[in-house]
């Protein structure tokens, strides 16, 4: 599994994390626009993929644990909206490195897509 690869601590270049596991990428994307708690991430991913990628609670937290360890996300000390929220929930945020890694992965996928179009595998964009 590519995401479990451990980049060397003295070399935290975003490229050293690539390619990302699809679960990981989706979680990072989901945290790109706002901070979320676990269930919110899960819902967002399911929505964006029209239900094709459904993370189980276990796989979600296995990924979260790894992302925390790698420094790609961080846990928030305070809840963004304490008034309308269960106080037991933890919120996560993309770190600077996490954002760079997500961008790098998106670019990689973009290039792959361009290649597929250039060779006629996919129809060219009109």
């Amino acid at each position: 599994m590519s995401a479990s690869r451990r980049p060397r601590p003295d070399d935290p270049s975003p490229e050293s994390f690539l390619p990302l596991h699809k679960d990981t990428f989706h979680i990072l994307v989901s945290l790109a626009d706002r901070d979320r708690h676990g269930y919110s991430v899960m819902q967002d991913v399911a929505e964006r993929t029209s239900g094709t990628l459904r993370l189980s609670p276990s796989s979600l937290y296995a990924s979260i644990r790894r992302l925390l360890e790698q420094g790609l996300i961080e846990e928030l000390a305070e809840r963004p909206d304490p008034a309308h929220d269960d106080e037991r929930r933890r919120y996560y945020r993309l770190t600077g490195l996490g954002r760079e890694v997500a961008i790098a992965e998106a670019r990689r996928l973009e290039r792959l897509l361009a290649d597929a179009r250039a060779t006629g595998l996919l129809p060219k964009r009109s």
Partner: protein
Amino acid sequence: MRRPVRFFDALLKLYPVDFRDEYGREIVLVFADRYRDATGPLARAGVWFEAVLGVLRHAPKEHVRMFWQDVRYAARSLRANPLFAGMVVLALALGIGANSAIFSVVNAVVLRTLPVPDPGQLYLVREQPGPNQPYRVSWPAFDRLRLAAPGQVAAISRAVATLHARIGGAAQAEPIPAHLVSGEFFGVLGVSAARGRVLTPDDNRTPGGHPVAVISYGCWQRRFGGSPEVIGKEISLNGARFSIVGVAREGFPGVWLESPTEVWLPLAMQHDVHYSQNYSASNSRTTEAWMPQAGIEWLCVVARAPAGAAPMQAALNLTYQQGRAERAALIADPEARRRFLQGKVVMDPFAHGISRLRERFTEPLYLLMAMAGLVLLIACANTANLLLARATARQREIALRLSLGAGRIRLFRQLLTEGLLLVSIAAVAALAIARWTAGALVHMAASTPRGSAPFAAEIDWRVLAFTAGVALATALLFGVAPAIRAARVDPAAALKAGARSISGASGRMPRILVAMQVALSLVLVVGAGLLVRSVRNALETPLGFDREHVLSVAIDPRLAGYRAEQLPLLYDRLLERIGALPGVQKAALAACGILAGCRSAEDNLIIEGYEGPRGGEAFVVNNVVTPGYFEAVGMRLRAGRLLEERDRKGALLVGVVNEAFMRRYAGGAPPLGRKFGQSAADREIVGVVEDARVQDVKNEPQPMAYFPLQQRGATARSMEIRAEGDPRQIASAVRRAIAEVEPRLPIEGVVTLSERVRTNLTQDRLLLSLFSAFGGLALGLAAFGLFGLLSYTVARRRGEFGIRMALGEPASSVLWSVLRESLLLACAGLAIGLPLVIAGAGWMRSVLFGVGPRDAATILTAAGVLLAIAAVAGWWPAWRASRTDPLAALRSE
């Protein structure tokens, strides 16, 4: 909804504690949300199913991840302390390696079964009452017996013989191990042919009529290069020509562990290859073909009983007892007849084949296993102490981690992983040690030269499993206590106490462990000491012959092409030529060499004036010798006269007996003039010689009779030559002289009697070397344990010594106080060890000679050695303590 959530929550117990503590609540919350949001029972079931599957998939992964994280952490922490890691690995590798090495020999000698299908169905037939030996039968007796279970019993000669083989007209004969077997042998064992065919009952009908041989796969590869044209090739064995009819399948080395067979021959060919080993004869002509003779018992019976031993044993006994009934009619005494008729045959498991090594070494091997176990215990105690000291030194680190929120279970796991990592490295090293030493042990046990092991003590799955098991037990034994102790640290107290707080190592545990090491070392050192005395006793015991000046030459005149009637001339020429060599005092010939593993006995003796129980109980070991034999080997005359030149063919038949004969059959008085014999008392006793341990150095001499070679048609297989000085110096001259007299006469070995004595004591010397090695190792470890503990204590009490010296206490007093601690610990160890020595003494009894297992002198010496070691181990720390600079010590406080 509550129930599914509760169940899911319980399922999370499958995760490692740390993960559960960190994310468990969150996961349950997310699950509860999803479950709540799912519409309809089907969707809920889907959510539930998905969540459970997710746990089952991810929990094991988390465990593995955690384990590797622990391993990485442990490796890092060990790398930071290479000296500590190196010492622990070395101690454990030696401890586990000793166990694995001994176990791999036990595995090869005791546990491994014959490489045949269903070895558990094989049995060896034994007679009861009787010696604990396989039933030795004649061919006619076997011929009757096999009718009871056709195709399921086979006969084999009692020994694997070394024959002189010439292959493809080669000029030089090579020794080749051959086994004589009945036609049923391969069928009963279930061994097929890789080429050609195996032997069948049709190959074993007429004495001398079946010159066919089956060779082993190894023999085929080595001696015939694996050529497919081997079938039909001729091979000459002890001068007789055989045609190779088959190659046994790969990996079948025969049924004799230490004598892997290269060629199998029909029993009917016994006379043609001059086989004459391990037999007993009565009323028979041993120089003629044995097969038709009912008086020569030379075969063992092997059976395959797929339906279990009981029915076949019953069938065999029916036939056996019919034969007994006929013979019983000849016994006059009703009591003796009744006892004779009570005899029966029983079936002993034969799954492991035959091995003299196993008979002799099983008990010593288990003794050695126990000793190796002690060495490992000492290594464990040592390691536990090192880990305890380390855990104490790491208290601050551990306290810091605990206060930062690390779980105690996690910490415990990490410390245990460290132990496991150490043990794993040690176990790999131990296997290397075992591989190397097990081979050497087999060489020593089988008394073969290096590089020609009769069988391999391989590292197979059993040895691997054993090593892994021992390693795991070791890790738990030495790792758990320090890990528990370390994880129990009170963070607040430890942090508050600061760098000076190295409490704990001064506790009772390390001292108990060191005393235990001393105690276990005492057991091993006493064992080694007893064996040293035992071997010295055996080497110095009066043997009844002169071991210092005699050269023994093994010859085989039957292979020189002489007919029986021509042999006396050859003997005369040999004796005359050798006797004239410079440096030779006396030369004589004998059928059996001294301590040469040759034994010939007669039973059912009739002895004039002896009224003991009849029915096979009066027996005598015999030897056939030329006049001058007793002078040559240095046996002294006790009464009457020795054999002389006048005891020739046609003269009065005479014999000389030994003192054991005199004691058992003549009430202790010289039975001169009395006659004895087998069918009739036809030989007159003319002399009594001193008892000599000619069969075994450690066994009491048995009743023996010596007969003149001129009167009995035996073949002389040994020449005993008495030298004026060192017998080794005449060895090459003797070889040359024999070759001059008869170039065709094969010389099978030239050794001195003192070498024979040493070979005879192989088992004792092997045990001695191993016990010494284990004892030395134990001493080293115990010394190291003491040294480590005291150095540590001295470092910790530096301030105290500083104050004491500042207050005017002399350095010698400080030195003595530390040294006294070392000696007290050793004394405590000795006090624990002494009862162990006394309790374990029974185990040693069977391997000792001339010394009791509770020999006080040995125990005292061993205790003295341990005290001396304790003094040496304590000296350096004590000296360091006495050199403490009070000012520097107090400043650092």
